[in-house]
């Protein structure tokens, strides 16, 4: 399978990139390309222009801003995050999540920005043009039906990135660059939970940096991922937990889930369930229930929806116990 024809643009600065984004209508950003390139081959995108942002040196690397927190450039690779002592020490949940993504080779290419902006996935969508032709085009691409929820009008393609639930637990913020400069947005407010319009990013905007607040540095973190293979596989369900303890009691806690909804979601009611208490089996089980209730898996992915929801419950319980007691 070959790539469709497009013009490749290679800006050297953020400003230049934003300018190009504004200038061209039919355009796709490529960072590591591990998500976009296979999709181009499958003709899920046939852009006139592709902007390769990898030459923008300012978007690489991890930097501490004293008194504020840590800043990670959108082009920082998942391998860099996995091997960063700083991240391992201060934001262990992010490190855990990053090292479960795909395989070592893909992590060498894949960027944090690309992981956050990852296209939503569906078994009926991530297929070749020939395949989709024989099946019938769906809402997400070229058609107006949904194979997952027949008769429905909403797209349920599932968000399957591993690091965003970890970033949500850490109260991460994004820096978004656009024609009018940059703006900040809480990651929590970035996703739409719509499979076919996954993020709140204007056409001429891009994600430039990620901020992790100093406040959540040192939170204990655990990431648990359901997959059939120990490597390569996207999550079929994923749970991130980050919490702060003092004197055996939980001071603050966050749980977020991925791969079971069109967006990574923060599980509501966790603070209420946990803060001020010490973590027990019962509390962990209760959080597991909350997480399972947030999960709305459908037949977008391998394994049955019911099993995947069940695993959100089990994994959330286990992750809370581990983060809360070890």
């Amino acid at each position, binding site marked *: 399978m070959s790539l469709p024809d497009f013009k490749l643009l290679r800006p050297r600065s953020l400003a230049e990139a934003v300018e190009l984004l504004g200038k061209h209508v039919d355009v796709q950003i490529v960072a590591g390309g591990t998500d976009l390139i296979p999709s181009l081959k499958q003709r899920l995108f046939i852009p006139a222009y592709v902007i390769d942002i990898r030459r923008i040196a300012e978007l690489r690397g991890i930097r501490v801003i004293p008194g504020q927190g840590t800043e990670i450039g959108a082009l920082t690779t998942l391998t860099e995050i996995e091997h960063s002592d700083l991240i391992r020490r201060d934001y262990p949940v992010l490190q855990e999540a990053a090292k479960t993504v795909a395989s070592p080779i893909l992590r060498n290419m894949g960027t944090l920005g690309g992981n956050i902006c990852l296209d939503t996935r569906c078994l009926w969508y991530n297929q070749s043009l020939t395949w989709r032709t024989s099946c019938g085009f769906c809402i997400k691409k070229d058609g107006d039906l949904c194979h997952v929820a027949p008769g429905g009008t909403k797209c349920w393609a599932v968000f399957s990135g591993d690091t965003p639930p970890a970033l949500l637990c850490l109260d991460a913020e994004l820096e978004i660059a656009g024609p009018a400069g940059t703006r900040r947005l809480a990651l929590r407010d970035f996703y739409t939970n719509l499979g076919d319009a996954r993020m709140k990013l204007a056409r001429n905007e891009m994600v430039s940096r990620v901020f992790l607040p100093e406040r959540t540095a040192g939170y204990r973190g655990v990431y648990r991922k359901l997959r059939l293979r*120990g490597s390569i596989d996207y999550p079929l369900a994923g749970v991130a937990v980050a919490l702060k303890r003092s004197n055996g009691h939980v001071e603050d806690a966050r749980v977020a889930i991925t791969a079971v909804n069109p967006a990574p979601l923060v599980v509501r009611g966790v603070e209420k369930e946990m803060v001020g208490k010490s973590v027990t089996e019962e509390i962990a089980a209760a959080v597991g229930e909350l997480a399972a209730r947030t999960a709305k898996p459908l037949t977008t992915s391998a394994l049955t929806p*019911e*099993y995947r929801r*069940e695993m959100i419950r089990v994994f959330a319980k286990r992750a809370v116990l581990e983060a809360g007691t070890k």
Partner: protein
Amino acid sequence: MSDFSIIGKRIAMVDAAGKTTGAGKYTDDLTLPGMLIGKILHSPYPHARIKRIDASRALALEGVVAVVTGQDAPNKYGILPVGHDETALAVDRVRYVGDNVACVAAVDETTAEKALELIEVEYEPLPAYFDPEESMKAERDLIHENRPHNLEKDYHHVFGDPEKGFAEADCIRESRYIANEVTHAAMEPHSTLAAFELDPYSGALGRLTVWSSTQVPYYLQHKLSLVLEMPMSQIRVIKPLVGGGFGGKSEVIPLEIIAAVAARAAKAPVKITYTREEVFWAHRGRPRTIMDMKIGAKRDGRLTAVAARVVQDGGAYCSYGVVTILYSGALLGAIYDILNVRWDGYRVLTNKPACGAMRGHGTVNVRFAFESQLDEIAAEIALDPAEIRRINLLQPPCITVNNLRVTSYGLPECIEKVVERSGWRERRGKLPRGRGLGIGCSHYVSGAANSIIRSDMPHSTVNIKIDRDGGVVVYTGASEIGQGSDTMTAQIAAEVLGCTLQRVKIVAADTDLTPIDIGSYSSRVTFMAGNATLRAAEEVKKQIASAAARKMNCVPEDLVFRDDLVFKRGSSVSSVPSGVDSVVAGRVEGQILRGSLQQKRKEEVPKDWMTFEEAVVAAIDFHGALTGTGSYAPPPESRGGSFKGAGVGPSPSYSYSAQVADVSVDEETGEVTVHKVWAAHDCGRALNPVAVEGQIIGSVWMGLGQALEEEMVWKDGLLMNPGLLEYRSPSAVESPEIEPIIVESIDPEGPFGAKECSEGSLAATIPAIANAIYDAVGIRLREVPFTPERVLAAIRARDAAAKKLDLTEGVDPTAPTRFREHGGALWFRGKGPKRHELDPARRAEQLAGGDD
């Protein structure tokens, strides 16, 4: 006698360097001047009539040289003489999503792909069949007109007296097992390059040369000749390096014929390389198999009877189907001593890609059912699972009730070894909750005693030529596909001739140069091509010996060939130089041109020894040329019975294996972790122990994939996971340590006693894991793969838990019940949505009939 210098040694593959450095050439690495790229248009329908194909717009596209369709080569072919039901491209009907409709040959891939979109095809959709048990009821809209009820073939065998056997049993178990469909997933996608010679004046087409990733170059040559209506002598097939086959390249795959048809139309070389998705459509993997298995046993563990009904979902074409179904019955025999057997086999056509031969052809799924049920019986009569297997061993040499001749039989030792190494006796039953050990046994043929096209001709022939400097060239038709065929050939030749391995050069699998060998399938190469090599080498050796004996004043029988020397038996070791290098220089320098006259002058008295080169020169002097040939045909007494279907199953020899798996099961998630597998395999003699171990480990890992993860999932004939991301072959992470244990039963007829080692181990892995899961958590899984959701559903069912895991949630209640009866599947299998009005692939109307 096990005093060999090359046999039995751990030797690196002779073709390893090219593969590891990247210098080696696979088919897709090849290019020719003026070469075009071929791309195939595939059917979007599972079953439809082609009403019209209009390729004019595609042909008009700049860069497109030719477009071919079914009419360009309508002759039928198929790997089996009874199954000639394929054409290069669909002639008037497509039978599965992915069936081949047209092929574009263009200057590059992009142009060819664009041209595909310009081909207009008008289809008339037909009712389609996706489930074998429904398909068998079909009365009309048959997949092939000459196959009533969509039944490719059914067989009904009875040996002994099963009724009596079951009547005598104290314990009978009967249940249904299902093994879902899997595919080979070889690393190298299929690729073919076809080129005709052109007459420079008239432009007329001459001889055809085809380079292809194949396990069977000679069958390819034969089928090309059928379809293209050219004599075989005008066709040359060359097999470059092949990146794995596992059966997926053991017959003629559509692209191989299509490339030649396109090259003929374009009058230019055409190369086609499948995308991974196309590899899945070409398929020929292991069929989904439904097995109703029944075993009866006495209280003491002796088996009294077996009955099996096996239904295979064969896909849209015959392929190897008739053989696959027959193996599923035949190989109930030749492993245990069972006197009463009933077997009913059904090979059914459905509108899906054709299934064919895959590692452990025909036996793997049935072995899973049998070995699982054997454990159920053992549990019921409170016998150790290893013990019940021991009680039912054969007493070879013997002939089984279904006429299989068993000679060498290392199964008892295999069982003993894995029991011992795994700590079976000490550990089993004493492991912590959730952890368990399980055992499984299996066997396989060392080549089929009857070739596909039945004849008395040899199955393998090998020629050897020795040059004046002692270089040995072995010409063999055997196909190296990564399994070590070339290395095995070189080892046998070098051992017989007593020369170094470095002297031996292998020329293999080129129909113009090498004598015929029927191919790399059914684990036949070591046994058959190995024997042919042995015979060819012995023939040349005899010529060298007679000449050398004259020089040494002795009889040829007194000579020993070893370590690049020829010496008199019993000559004192000290008189024979240990290093060859010291004598080669000077003594025989220049002899190639001057002949041996000069050399003779140098020699004063007859000696006790000669170098290999000297002996070769003496022989060429004496005989004029030094060539030898050897061939192998299985002995008549190994060819089996004469009942209908008796041709499949017989082999000159069988390999045996026993395995113990150590697993743990997470009872909250259903996840199964395999910690270790001890795998003992009786390969007769390990010609190259590293290669044998590699094959055992690879087989176990492949079996593990089928046991835990791999499954082709269908939705209305559409493959939901046509790629290596969603079709999950195990990654290194969940491939545990395998302890390969080589058992050597020294087969009386194998080359140096060797027999099969690369397929037989696979079948034991799946039941060993199933039985270990039972030992760990007390659930009996009857459907592979044992995905976590199936395991969890069974655990919940075991506990009659309040919180049942209903894996069929969301499944359309009108969907056929068989989708529900076995507790779920990897994916939703209910009905899909109606296709949208504007959808290009929308079916004309809701069709009557079919089973969708």
